[in-house]
């Protein structure tokens, strides 16, 4: 006859054993079985952060797990990218990869990671075109007039950017080469102060993303001359694309997507890609992205990977041609 204590001990052993057996079974529970995190490699506020929070919110509901946004800013996205590249490829750490981390940065500086080899492309979210703006007071109405004006000024014009090597800098350099005029680059810490100085008349041209430029175009202190991208943007239907005006290769946009560490298992990538592409169909999500002038650009993981490689190649070529390299 077992004593009470023996029986209790036996029960405990059974419970322990069950727990032990259950644990590996738990690990094999279908993905995802715990919280995910999306690293936003920037400070809170702005397009990357917005995309991270919007995707986190929707993805969390679709997967039935909390998705936490972690802002790891620094070095124009290098700190967050490095953290992602080093994370375990288990599908629980993702990152918002954007034109900075996976487009222009690899083109202009030596990075402690490889933007292609160290990441798995998961899904493209969307992109916003850049728009060339000049002060309303400038005596030009169209892009060809601006080019003629800039040439007549013979290098007296200054243009702002959100920082050396950023898209706003490279896009203007690309246009300078294509149109054949000279202008001095003046770098700012982010697009905000660069906009303040074109409004104040300190600089004469700027190439911001549409979301940043639109309120000031509406405010009437600056006027848009042309947008990048393949088609006109529905928020600025009267503004021509560079393509229309005869400039080739101005289809680069400020894009945002989701990437993970290298070697993410294919089924996980497929699951996430399906969920994100499905959410891009939702009308209310489209509306929210429209606030940042973002057009959804659904892609398969392979298409997204190709897009990243093309974008890096595009900006690398330009940076090389213009001698833009931010390494000592």
């Amino acid at each position: 006859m077992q004593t009470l204590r023996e029986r209790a001990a036996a029960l405990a052993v059974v419970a322990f054993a069950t727990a032990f057996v259950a644990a590996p079974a738990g690990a094999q529970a279908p993905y995802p079985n715990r919280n995910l995190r999306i690293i936003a490699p920037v400070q809170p506020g702005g397009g990357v952060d917005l995309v991270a929070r919007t995707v986190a919110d929707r993805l969390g509901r679709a997967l039935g797990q909390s998705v936490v946004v972690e802002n790891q800013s620094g070095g124009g996205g290098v700190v967050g990218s490095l953290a992602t590249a080093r994370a375990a490829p288990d599908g629980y750490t993702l990152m918002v990869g954007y034109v900075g981390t996976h487009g222009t940065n690899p083109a202009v500086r030596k990075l402690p990671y490889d933007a292609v080899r160290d990441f798995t492309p998961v899904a493209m979210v969307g992109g916003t075109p850049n728009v060339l703006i000049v002060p309303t007071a400038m005596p030009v109405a169209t892009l060809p007039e601006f080019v003629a004006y800039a040439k007549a000024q013979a290098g007296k014009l200054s243009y702002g950017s959100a920082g050396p090597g950023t898209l706003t800098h490279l896009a203007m350099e690309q246009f300078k080469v294509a149109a054949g005029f000279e202008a001095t680059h003046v770098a700012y810490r982010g697009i905000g102060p660069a906009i303040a100085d074109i409004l104040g008349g300190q600089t004469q041209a700027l190439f911001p993303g549409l979301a940043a430029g639109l309120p000031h175009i509406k405010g009437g202190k600056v006027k848009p001359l042309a947008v990048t991208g393949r088609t006109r943007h529905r928020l600025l239907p009267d503004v021509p694309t560079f393509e229309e005006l005869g400039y080739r290769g101005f289809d680069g946009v400020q894009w945002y997507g989701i990437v993970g560490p290298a070697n993410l298992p294919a089924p996980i990538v497929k699951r996430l890609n399906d969920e994100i592409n499905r959410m891009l169909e939702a009308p209310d999500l489209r509306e929210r992205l429209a606030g940042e002038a973002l057009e959804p650009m659904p892609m398969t993981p392979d298409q997204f990977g190709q897009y990243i490689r093309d974008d890096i190649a595009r900006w690398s070529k330009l940076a090389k041609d213009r001698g833009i390299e931010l390494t000592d």
Partner: protein
Amino acid sequence: MELLSNLGLGFSVALTFTNIFYCFLGVVLGTLIGVLPGIGPVPTIAMLLPITYALPPVSALIMLAGIYYGAQYGGSTTAILVNLPGESSSVVTCIDGYQMARQGRAGKALAVAAIGSFIAGTFATLVVAGFAPPLAEVALKFGPAEYFSLMVLGLISAVVLASGSLVKAIGMIVLGLLLGIIGTDVNSGLQRYTFGIPELSDGIGFVVVAMGLFAFAEIIINLEHRGHREVFTDKVSNLMLTWKEFKEVLPAIARGTGIGSVLGILPGGGALLSAFAAYTIEKKISKEPQSFGKGNIRGVAAPESANNSGSQASFIPLLTLGIPPNAVMALMVGAMTIHSIQPGPQVMTSNPQLFWGLIASMWIGNLMLVVLNLPMIGIWVKLLQVPYRLLYPAILVFCCIGTYSLQNNVFDVVLTVVFGVLGWIFVKLECEPAPLLLGFILGPLMEENLRRALLLSRGDPTVFVTRPISATLIALAAILLIIVALPMIRKKREEAFHEEAA
């Protein structure tokens, strides 16, 4: 009166039950995170942003704005009680506020901070309501040349700010400038003094330096004198100000409010600069400048008023230009865009309820803060009676959580400890950390704008004296320098210094 009808519209929006509730929620939350060292409004607002999707845009912005100025408010509480500047603008409050707390006058310091902030907030609300569009035009006139000249003026005032040795003050400023150089150079995009550490590529965080130099160093010093650590709570005097004291601080509050309202509209560091400027001026015109840094009540009143009116005036560039002057405002832009409101010059005409409702709610929020906080002063002061062996680990833990949350990175926590040790060395050498912080903040801005101004002028240095605003600022700086250098005044400085040493 258009202003009155606009404000009428604003109050009709802000005084609905829903909006009062969200305003209250915002200021309470803001006060709490402000009091907790290091947990600033940025992560809080970032976390709450998704929740605001569901709210009407006015309520969302009212709540977020409440968090912002509530945090400014709560930040001064920790600055006064435990010498811990949670927000950059409360660094100056530490100087005299903490000394007052040590003398048992914590209640009075908190009261004057609350009253000063309220008066400043009321005035700044009127400024925003009445003059936002023209002031925004003025802010746009500030190009790189003007900013550079303003920074020159700021740095020279920092020398005047120091209460001790002139040489040490200059030394600390230079050290601050050097620390500010660390990071990525804005013009070339190259890294300086980062030793290949990616975490350093955006420079050292302000909160890291401030927390290390002030809070950590203070704790080390206190633990050093373990046996006989001063207990400054036995002699707590009246919590409220006497009428005589009130009359004494009122002019200081008025001056601080004015300075904050002017400097706050500049995108880029306006609110912080205004606190420093207000303190410097207060000390300069005082009959007894040597009492500053030793618990002068006006040394609390002026910067507190200045930073509150400054932080409210910083809504001007956001609301009228759509240019966010700091990270909090960038998040507010985010909150607007998710509701499909494009922040910018057209907000005032396209969304008048939002614009005026937000402005009216600022005043209501300020009123709530003062009503909430004045009765709480007694409770805060009681906090000082918590035995130090329990208090200091709590402060340390909160500081570490705070610095970690800056970038979700352990590196910043380690760096804070390094600055704590450095701060302890400074105390031993009798060097004041405030000028270092000013140099640390102004240095990079100054360099950036100098180089930008010269780029724009194609290398012509006369740009600083041919542009009228810039020339005026440079002239002011020169006058200030002459005053400091005049032998007679130098002698007076030395006297003051000797008295202090005595």
